[in-house]
């Protein structure tokens, strides 16, 4: 088991290296840099630009050096927990980001839990009552959630909450708590606001989860061991929970790997509509103004989050399924 985990973690390193190179290239690709767009902006406003200051800044942040060199500077900074410098906000990215990374993780984590809580019973019900009205209805509901663009759902819920309950649900907490340290009241306020983004983001992943669980459980239910278990008089619920459910749980857990990127990207868009204090709105702004370290570090963080998620799901899977941790079963 330990060797499996170690192997899996080692395998993560090249993945992260490739991702960081990809992210850096993407950020680097657009012509020009932040200083050029900044200068153009200042000139458009009729202000004079201090060329020497710009040159100094460029030199200070290594923009006169080769991109490859800058990549290594950036990566070694990342490794030491230094996310770089945001030109637009004129402070270090760590400060700009602040709590946002934490809130992004919070939203993603809660969403996964909620998605599971919804998808799990529905999936089991749909599989055990195949082609019943309940199955069709619930599957349809799940697909409807998948088919509705997240941002519109967010907008609609925001409006309805305003009309029905008279509350404003934008943001992740009450505005008076934004710059305050964590407290019980703040925590409650976050919980009050969290359900909308969680619900909205969760809708898209839930349908996929239900579908996977249903399909796998249906496959298992047709197998002979299940028929045998039923034939020898095992209680239906027990027969279901003990064997087929355990088998299909594997797919359920390995699905985190697929679910997490969906949730993270869904969260970005919903965050923009609902103006959540997560990375989404800041990322868009950073991309538009070519604030490259900010954007790059965000992207890197999001990718890191998903890679870690996949890692956790793989390890959990290895715990559950000895075939995976032993790496056997391969004939060729």
């Amino acid at each position: 088991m330990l060797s499996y985990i170690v192997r899996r973690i080692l395998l993560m390193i090249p993945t992260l290296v490739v991702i960081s190179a990809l992210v850096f290239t993407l950020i680097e690709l657009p012509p020009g840099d932040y200083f050029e767009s900044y200068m153009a902006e200042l000139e458009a406003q009729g202000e004079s630009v201090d060329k020497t200051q710009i040159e100094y800044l460029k030199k200070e942040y290594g923009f006169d050096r080769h991109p490859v060199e800058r990549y290594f500077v950036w990566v070694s900074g990342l490794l030491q927990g230094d996310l770089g410098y945001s030109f637009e906000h004129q402070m270090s990215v760590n400060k700009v980001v602040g709590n946002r990374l934490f809130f992004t993780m919070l939203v993603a984590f809660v969403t996964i839990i909620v998605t599971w809580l919804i998808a799990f019973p529905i999936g089991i019900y749909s599989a055990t009552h195949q082609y019943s009205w309940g199955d069709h209805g619930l599957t349809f509901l799940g697909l409807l959630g998948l088919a509705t663009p997240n941002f519109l759902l967010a907008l609609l819920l925001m409006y309805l909450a305003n009309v029905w309950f008279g509350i404003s649900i934008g943001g992740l907490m009450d505005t008076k708590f934004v710059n305050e340290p964590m407290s019980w009241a703040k925590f409650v306020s976050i919980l009050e606001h969290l359900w909308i983004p969680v619900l909205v983001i969760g809708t898209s992943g839930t349908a996929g989860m239900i579908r996977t669980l249903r399909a796998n459980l249906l496959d298992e239910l047709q197998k002979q061991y299940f028929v045998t278990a039923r034939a020898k008089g095992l209680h239906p619920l027990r027969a279901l929970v003990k064997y087929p459910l355990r088998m299909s749980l594997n797919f359920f857990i390995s699905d985190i790997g697929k679910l997490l990127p969906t949730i993270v990207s869904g969260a970005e868009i919903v965050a923009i509509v609902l103006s959540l204090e997560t990375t989404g709105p800041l990322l868009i702004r950073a991309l538009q103004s070519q604030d490259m370290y900010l954007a790059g570090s965000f992207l890197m963080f999001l990718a890191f989050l998903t890679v870690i998620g996949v890692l956790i799901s793989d390890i959990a899977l290895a715990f559950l399924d000895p075939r995976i941790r032993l790496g056997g079963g391969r004939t060729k």
Partner: protein
Amino acid sequence: MKSSQSYNAPNGLKTPAQKPGTPLEHYVNSAPFDPKSIEQLTPEQEHVFLASQWRLMWWKFCRHRLAVASAIFLALMYLGVIFSEVFAPYNYQARHIEYLNAPPQGIHLFHNGSFVGPFVYGYDMRKDMETLRRVYTPNIQKVQPLRFFCLGERYKFWGLVEGRLHLFCPAKGGEAFLLGTDRLGHDMLSRIIEGGRISLSIGLLGVAVSIILGVVFGGIAGYFGGIADLIIQRIIEVLQSLPSIPLWLTIAALLPITWPPLLVYLFITIVLGLFEWTGLARAVRSKLLALREEDYVLAAQLMGAKPNRIIGRHLVPGFTSHLIASATLAIPSMILGETALSFLGLGLRPPITSWGVLLTEAQNINIVALYPWLMLPVVPVILVVLAFNFLGDGLRDAADPYK
């Protein structure tokens, strides 16, 4: 199994026994030899047992009612967007400055209890002096029957041929905004129909890109295995672990603003396809891994066929059906992706009209409260995505007809 032909006993057995010791009489049955005489199939059985694989799939697909209905719906949609200019009552770019943010006009059939045929009531416009908003109310004195197959606003069919023919148009001197107008006075219905052309085609083109990439990379990984497989697997893993929307945003942000709309459209399509091929490549790879062990592949190899011929000619046809099913299931995410990108202002831009571009108008909560009909473009998005999902499910079930 019943045999339709009775067994013909040789004559010799029916005649009285021969005298012992004499040689047997030479006997030849004159009936033509039929090797299937024992297990003769009835025409119905023959119909089923000898059906080709594609025919079996077709039968199985037809049993999935929802999938068939979705297929018909999608076919009509695609047919519709080919002639979108004709189906739209107005030119989608024409502005009707008298009618800004006008609500939808309902279609009525009866006026004062008598049958008139489909018609709409004209608007009365007044200005709300408190909110300074234009308020349109239907005036039941203004009966404006719709005209069918009529000459209406000019348009350029596919931007090439000029025309005036519409499926239906408003009454002369009247208006018919069945889904209302937007803030610039464009007819929403016409814009939704026109936007369908872009939104629906972007899904198809994107999937085409990802099928090509998926088959090429999945084919290499699955057929050659070894190092190539390892590298491609890692690439797929990396791409799949990246959250797609932030990535799309980053790439879309690369787009120079000066590019012409058509180029932007192509670029977005390729971007969508570029990150969706991983799923298809995985499917291709796992299928190829199983199929390459078959004897016919070995036979082809021994005859000296080159790898790309074996993959293309012998292996790919074996899982085309699976490929089509997976591709169908990939289209919805592209349509939704385009919507999301355009919504954030990083995808397509006006004057190109897609459902996502239309939805950018519905970006703030005031719109939802005051002009809810601007959110209508979401209806076709939901319907199309649902239909593709059902169709994909049906195809996937049908792809393995022997199950």
